């Protein structure tokens, strides 16, 4: 599904990722952990082709297609979804308006009635108030509501590869559990893959990873299974780095 090979990325001529290799097959959950400034969020932005993140070496392929010349919206249309740490608010623009536009851009042809029906059903399935769809994007929403909103978008746009950037940020225990269950149900249904970016293991109680990577200085310094994540929680990142050395 997603393959990253010998990746080097620069922002404003500063190297932030150097020599990164990753391979995430279909229907798997992979986790990228690392201390602040390790380059975790930079990887999200690079995959989503944020123009500030310049790929100077290596390649990223999605379903065997090199995304080098693709733009952010094209990568999203291929099926990659980024659930951001702090989704921004857009005053004056409703969720329904944004989702309908995103579907039209994907070539989906459905009447406004079909669209509304589908959106209402998605809200009901996710236990989200249907008024949500007519609220402005993330405006006056709590951290938990913003993440729920993203879950709704996932269920409507149906991506096959989902990046969760610090999902637990701004979420309480119940919120994290509820959201994780929603994502797990989506994975079961769509056989989607996940790349989870996190500092902590909280989320791994619900979304059990197939593989865990530890990132430092823009490259992977340790790889393992779920146990690696829990060891890091115990011994800290410095301890994990010394083991990998």
């Amino acid at each position, binding site marked *: 599904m997603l393959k990253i090979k010998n990746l080097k990325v620069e922002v404003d001529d500063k190297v932030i990722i150097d020599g990164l290799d990753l391979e995430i097959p279909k229907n798997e959950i992979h986790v990228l952990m690392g201390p602040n400034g390790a380059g975790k969020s930079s990887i999200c932005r690079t995959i*989503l082709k*944020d123009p500030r993140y310049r790929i100077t070496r290596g390649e990223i392929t999605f379903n065997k297609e090199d995304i080098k010349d693709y*733009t*952010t*919206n094209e990568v*999203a*249309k291929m099926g990659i*979804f*980024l659930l*951001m740490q702090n*989704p*921004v608010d*857009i*005053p*004056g*623009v409703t969720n329904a*308006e*944004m*989702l309908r*536009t*995103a579907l039209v*851009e*994907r070539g989906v042809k459905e009447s406004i009635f079909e669209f509304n029906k589908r959106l209402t059903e998605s809200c009901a399935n996710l236990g989200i108030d249907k008024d949500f769809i007519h609220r*402005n*994007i993330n405006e006056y929403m709590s951290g938990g509501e913003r993440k729920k909103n993203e879950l709704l*978008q996932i269920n409507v*746009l149906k991506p096959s590869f989902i990046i969760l950037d610090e999902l637990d940020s701004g979420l309480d225990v119940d919120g994290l559990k509820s959201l994780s269950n929603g994502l797990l149900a989506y994975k079961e249904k769509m056989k989607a893959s996940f790349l989870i970016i996190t500092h902590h293991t909280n989320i791994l109680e619900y979304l059990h990873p197939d593989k865990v990577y530890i990132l430092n200085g823009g490259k992977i310094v340790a790889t393992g299974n779920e146990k690696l994540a829990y060891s890091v929680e115990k011994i800290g990142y410095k301890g994990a780095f010394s083991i990998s050395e």
Partner: protein
Amino acid sequence: MNDKDLNRIVVSGGIIDWDKYMNAAHLIIKGDTVINAINLHNDLNLKIKIEKGKSLVINMFDYAVSLDVALVIEADENSNFVINSSFISDVKYTLNIDTIAYGDNTFGEVNIRGINERNSVIRIVMNGTVAGKTKNCVLNEYAHVLNKSNNSNVIIPNLIVNTNEVEANHGVTVGQIDEEKLFYLLSKGISRPVAAKIIEEGFLLSIMPDDIHEKIKNILVGR
């Protein structure tokens, strides 16, 4: 224009949709009133007096080549007013809003959102006066312009407060489209020009009441 040149009109209240030329008038607001002035395409010169205890909301939207709008609002005691003005300017847009609170317990707010579409000249002057010896008055002035050209925009938010017991605020920005908001929509699979258009229109609609959004969106369809 002198006061004697203005047509005196008494407004007893309600929701009024202006869809025709309305200029050079002196409005006396005697009941709670909402005025929606959508895309009138004409210069506006209005003097408005809000009588004791009454409220006035004006929602103005214009997508225009060149306009000159001047409002003078006088608020008597216990009265409220909110002026919302959104516009897209193609060549020249001049907006002068003078507000005078001369009674106690007034609330006034001016919200302006403008887009400088292509090398337009925008000039916004807000003169908010709170008269001496008044008490418990609130006056806010906000103006934000999205600049899509290299031209300069002038926004002057004046607050002239002649009393101590008052809450007065002003906020002004001139900037370009927020790259984070743009990236957010791009990451949902929306192309750059469409995403920019959505954000810009949301910016204009954000100060307008929901019930007139459709009307404004219909005007912007061909943009």
